[in-house]
């Protein structure tokens, strides 16, 4: 049974799509700021969540968002070849594409999960991407999961050895610095 049942036919009157955009700090987040500086206008249905690199993007965040009722998810990173961390967006591209196909195999409509490359200069592209995503998701209607998408929540880092972690291991930083 697919995880999603399309209910585009029964869209409530006052319904507004909810979309999360995971944006790389160095490119898309910068482009979104530029859209602000240029006083561009775009729908408020998208909330941006800042990540350091699209390579940081863990598929479980997408699942969590969909499970918790988000109608759509955007992941945005630097154009291939432009990653601030050299290769992060190549990993993101591979991971997100496979993951997208998996979600679609499970029944998710393609418009609900989009991956886009937007540079720090492309304020206009950011605005257009947001507008397009809102339009796509609006056409699909509210998400209607027939069951939660199962996943294994990553364990949190133990807090107890805070001190030990922050102490610098000796081998890593030798005491003496030569003149």
């Amino acid at each position: 049974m697919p995880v999603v049942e399309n209910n585009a036919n029964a869209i409530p009157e006052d319904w507004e799509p909810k979309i999360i955009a995971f944006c790389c700090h160095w490119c898309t987040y910068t482009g979104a700021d530029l859209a602000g500086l240029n006083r561009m206008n775009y729908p408020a249905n998208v909330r941006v969540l800042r990540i350091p690199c699209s390579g940081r993007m863990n598929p479980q965040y997408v699942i969590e968002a969909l499970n918790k009722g988000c109608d759509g998810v955007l992941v945005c990173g630097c154009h291939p070849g432009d990653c601030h961390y050299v290769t992060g967006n190549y990993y993101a591209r591979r991971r997100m594409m496979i993951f997208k196909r998996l979600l679609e195999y499970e029944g998710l409509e393609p418009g609900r999960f989009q991956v886009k490359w937007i540079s720090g200069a492309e304020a206009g592209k950011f605005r257009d991407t947001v507008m397009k995503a809102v339009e796509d998701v609006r056409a699909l209607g509210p998400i209607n999961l027939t069951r939660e998408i199962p996943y294994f929540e990553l364990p949190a880092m133990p807090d107890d050895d805070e001190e030990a972690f922050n102490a610098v291991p000796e081998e890593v930083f030798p005491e003496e610095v030569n003149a």
Partner: protein
Amino acid sequence: MSRIGVFLCYCGSNIAGTVDVEAVAEMARTLPGVVYVETNKYTCSDPGQEGVKNAIIEKGIDRVVVGPCSPRMHEPTWRKLLADTPVNPYMLEVANLREQCSWVHKDKAIATEKAKDLVKMAVAKVARLSPLHSTEIPVHKKALVIGGGIAGMQTALDIADAGFKVTIVERETSLGGKMVMLDKTFPTMDCSACICTPKMSEVGNHPNITVKSYSEVESVSGYIGNFEVTIREKAKYIDYTKCTGCGACETKCPSKVINEFEQGMSKRTAIYKMFPQAVPSKPVIDAEHCRMLQEGKCGVCAKVCPTGAINYQDEDKLTTETYGAIVFATGYKLIDWKPLYPEYGGGKYPDVITGLQFERLVNASGPTEGHILRPSDNKEPKSVVIIKCVGSRDPNKGKAYCSRACCMYSAKHAHQYLDKVPDGRCYVFYMDVRTPGKGYDEFYMNTVHDGAQYLRGRVSKIYKEGDKLICKGEDTLTSQQVTVAADMVVLETAMVPADGIDELAAKFTVGRDADGWLVEAHAKLRPVETNTAGIYLAGTAQGPKDIPDSVCQAGAAASKVIGLLNKDKLESNPQISRVNEALCQGDGACANICPYGAISIVEKQFRENSRKVTRPVAQVNPGLCQGCGACTVTCRAGAMDLMGYTNESIMREVDALCQW
């Protein structure tokens, strides 16, 4: 339970014009963990910041959310502010209420709702953050320059003059690189040796510079400020503390070998100096061709050496030292044109030579003492064809790129030839003539006035007829076939990266482009830095260029190194990845994808089920990790997390958003 303080900003009317800040504040007061909410007209102003500090202390706040402009604008300001309070600077989250809310929406009710969500999200995240501390990384005040061509020498001199110690590793027996092989240099035609050899002695005699000739980098570990480098000094079979450089050995050695410095156009002995003004000015024994070392008989050099410096038992020496910064100045070599261009004879005609061979032929200390004589019969060629772009701008056979210096040095070669052989004729086949540079186009026009005949087109075939080399090509300007009977042909061949650069770059995790040149961190804004912090580029190692550009880049790389070595300590970014050793499987998936080589797998001892076990776990080097987070996603065990952007904090941000 956390004690979160929320500080919202009006930013004059910038935020307050479209967002009802007081309504957002009202909502924030209801959020779990929030103990204090304040609004301010300008939070970033001095009184605004003072207010935040006072509130933190008075209310015993331990985590802070601010709701002003973009974190890209003021996040460092807020962290600095927190550093003056009991709150850890990393227990901070910024809700971007201006650039990504008030400035992009018009409807106040909608913008206010969005602002509330952004604040909820920030509160949810900050509640999950843990305090982080930057570590101080010591800086070893010493630089390593790899390659002793003009770029490497200039870098070393600039760093050394600023008062820092520098080591140059040069794999040949002398400093100088290609420049010292050149006869004269465009556009001013100074004698290359006259401007290059003084630099070599300056480097050799500089109190702050150590020259390790006949040496290569064996291995490296560490990171910015702390590169531990092992250098292999090949066996020279001569004790340099005794050798005076008199040269008696060289005159007596019976073993004759092809002379690489003279581009194969003369012979040298097995015990040799690369050229007379070599620095260091002492010979080495080329073990492969030494009769004593190969067959155990001869030993003539040891007999004639007046200081007893010869030591046939010498071995390679490994030394390890720590450097704060590294500069790659490994230069270029000329492309091996022979297999690529069978139509030019593929090497079977001795009178088809390369530009570097021509440089040696016109040089007064070269094999012909500066007389232009063709290699096959030592006769003066009366007609010379120069072919440009051999291997350059030719993606089918060679490289797609332009080698940048050849247009100018082919004009130089034509000029030199016509100068030395006034009754000679010189034809230059070209695709374009590119002369951007001060005095460059004037130089080219002078060569044309000297009588060099420029023909636009490629030569398609060279074959022998009698003692002439027949060059067939097309003059594309007149669309006519041209045939020139030449006595000698000079191929101006493409520059390609130096041999072995692939392995060397991999040791240092420095990137290379599709053609093998080392890659700068940013083509426009960071042209001499690499993506590995603390490693810089100078000269043709980064791509083809001429001497003035190599020297400029050398100065730029040196200034970056000086800036780094001037610091006693670097503050490391604490927002880096961290291993949960209890979960780590030690499979190294993370180590494989880290673009900075920051993760290593180490054997560690643990106490598990009250027994001691040793198992492999990942270890993150805080000096190398840049905090991209790619490793965290790769880890199947979920053992890797990114501080400041932990899985848990992002998940709770998502949850907070989904409540809207």
